[in-house]
């Protein structure tokens, strides 16, 4: 092969290697500014593929690293199932999961528990049998809820889901997504518990992201199925309805990690506890809005917030 061609190929290969090393959303901690109790803890903190998860992964990584760990956040995986699988295969040290999700999806249960602590304990026991531990449950509840554009809410006079049943049939229009449409803790359950009695044509199946804009427009539906901690709710001028019959499962956030990692470094739970305590649903909404609405980098949002809260 002529020398020029092989030199060119070498240059391309080298630059490809350099570029691939530079890419990817990983971040390493800066140093053990707050203590050394987690020295020796190394590996990756995983996350699912939406803003809240990116933020939580970075918060955890930075906080644990400030206590002597050398972890990095890996936000590249897509899909809850894949992240959970990676944890079970010991590719990740841990990631933030929701109690309802683990109960229903990974443990294949169809009936959620009504009370947050009961649900947390049940899922902790179930997952412990699989070598996965839960620590640092946070107050936020990223559950399903229905949202409606604020002006329409005032017009119809609805603040609670139990008021929907009494509305005229043409106002009972819903946008829901695929998963929600068949889950027991989704449409079938909520519409029978609250007696929606909505005509079949009034219920539209849309992709999760499209639901937010469709709810804001109001053309397709009045009520959209959304997630309680999403930053777009406030920014799109939507109002969330109260689940007064407490139908929806609880999706409390908690940190799941390999049982072995917790055994080797039991202080992880203590280090994460002050972080979890501050993560209420409102606080998560604010953080999510910074990423989803303002377009800030999750890494930076996490860093700024931790500094502000005096945790690093």
């Amino acid at each position, binding site marked *: 092969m002529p020398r020029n061609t092989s030199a060119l190929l070498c240059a391309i290969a080298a630059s490809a290697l350099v570029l691939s090393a530079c890419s990817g959303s990983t971040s390493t901690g800066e140093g053990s500014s707050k203590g050394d109790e987690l020295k020796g803890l190394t590996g990756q903190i995983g996350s699912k593929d939406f803003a809240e998860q990116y933020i939580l992964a970075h918060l955890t990584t930075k906080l644990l690293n400030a206590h002597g760990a050398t972890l990095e956040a890996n936000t590249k995986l897509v899909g809850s199932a894949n992240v959970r699988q990676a944890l079970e295969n010991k590719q990740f040290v841990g990631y933030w999961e929701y109690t309802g999700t683990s109960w229903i999806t990974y443990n294949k249960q169809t009936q959620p528990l009504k009370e947050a602590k009961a649900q947390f304990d049940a899922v902790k026991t179930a997952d412990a049998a699989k070598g996965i531990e839960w620590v640092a449950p946070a107050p936020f509840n990223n559950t399903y809820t229905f949202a409606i554009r604020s002006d329409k809410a005032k017009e119809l006079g609805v603040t609670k889901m139990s008021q929907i049943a009494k509305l005229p049939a043409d106002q009972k229009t819903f946008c829901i997504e695929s998963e929600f449409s068949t889950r027991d803790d989704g449409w*079938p359950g909520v519409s029978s518990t609250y007696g929606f009695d909505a005509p079949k044509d009034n219920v539209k199946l849309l992709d999760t992201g499209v639901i937010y804009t469709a709810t804001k427009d109001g053309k397709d539906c009045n009520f959209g199925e959304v997630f309680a901690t999403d930053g777009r709710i406030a920014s799109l001028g939507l109002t969330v309805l109260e689940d007064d019959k407490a139908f929806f499962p609880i999706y409390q956030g908690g940190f799941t990690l390999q049982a072995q990692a917790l055994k080797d470094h039991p202080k992880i739970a203590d280090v994460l506890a002050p972080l979890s305590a501050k993560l209420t649903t409102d606080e998560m909404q604010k953080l999510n809005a910074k990423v989803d609405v303002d377009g800030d980098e999750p890494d930076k949002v996490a860093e700024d917030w931790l500094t502000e809260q005096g945790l690093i």
Partner: protein
Amino acid sequence: MTVQLKRPSSLRHFVTPVAVVAVLAVVFAWVATLDLDSIEARTLNAGYLIDRTREHLVLTVVSSALVAVLAIPTAVLAHRVRSRVVRAIVVTLGNIGQATPAVGVVILLAIVWQTGFTTALVSLVAYCFLPVLRNTLTGLEQVDAATREAARGMGMTPNQVLWRIELPLASPVILAGLRTALVFSVGVATIATFINAGGLGDMIVNGLKLQRFSVLLVGAVLVAAIAVLIDWAAGLVEDRVRPRGL
């Protein structure tokens, strides 16, 4: 010396549908042995399957019919105009239609315009436009110039040349393009689930998100079965419509 083309024996005609039915039978038999939980039971039942399959077929067939009605005349016109620029523009538009990710197009349209069947239809038509367009153009172009000249020499008008000589001679290629478009649209019609247009995509996304593999498998196998059957049916039509001697 003429080459006598063998018409496929009628037995060969039935291999494909028999194989498809056999695979479906195996899958359904397997599902029947499963203990379905409440989530799976909501999708793995006759009513739901029939509704989704019907929606899927309607979307596929209507979009393919529309593509045929739109793309073939466009190609004929582009061929007639004999301007390289026009041809290039038309083919580029077709390229864009197919290259742009169908999922992106369908969601953008849903947000900017409306959700529902029509939007899914428009996206599918855009996606399947290119194979039919390209094949029609190629088919028309490959008609031997000498044959065309002979036809003109016989006193045929350009229209007559088109209908009696060029289109019949190009028909194998045109039909191949239509067949491709049909099979494409079966697969791509799964995206209709994202904008309330129904179809078997509902099952696939459901099974995927909830990690219920039985649901996912049945949905995927059904889509594949429909694609193979439609391809087979199109092949039958192609055999019938193709002029003898080609």
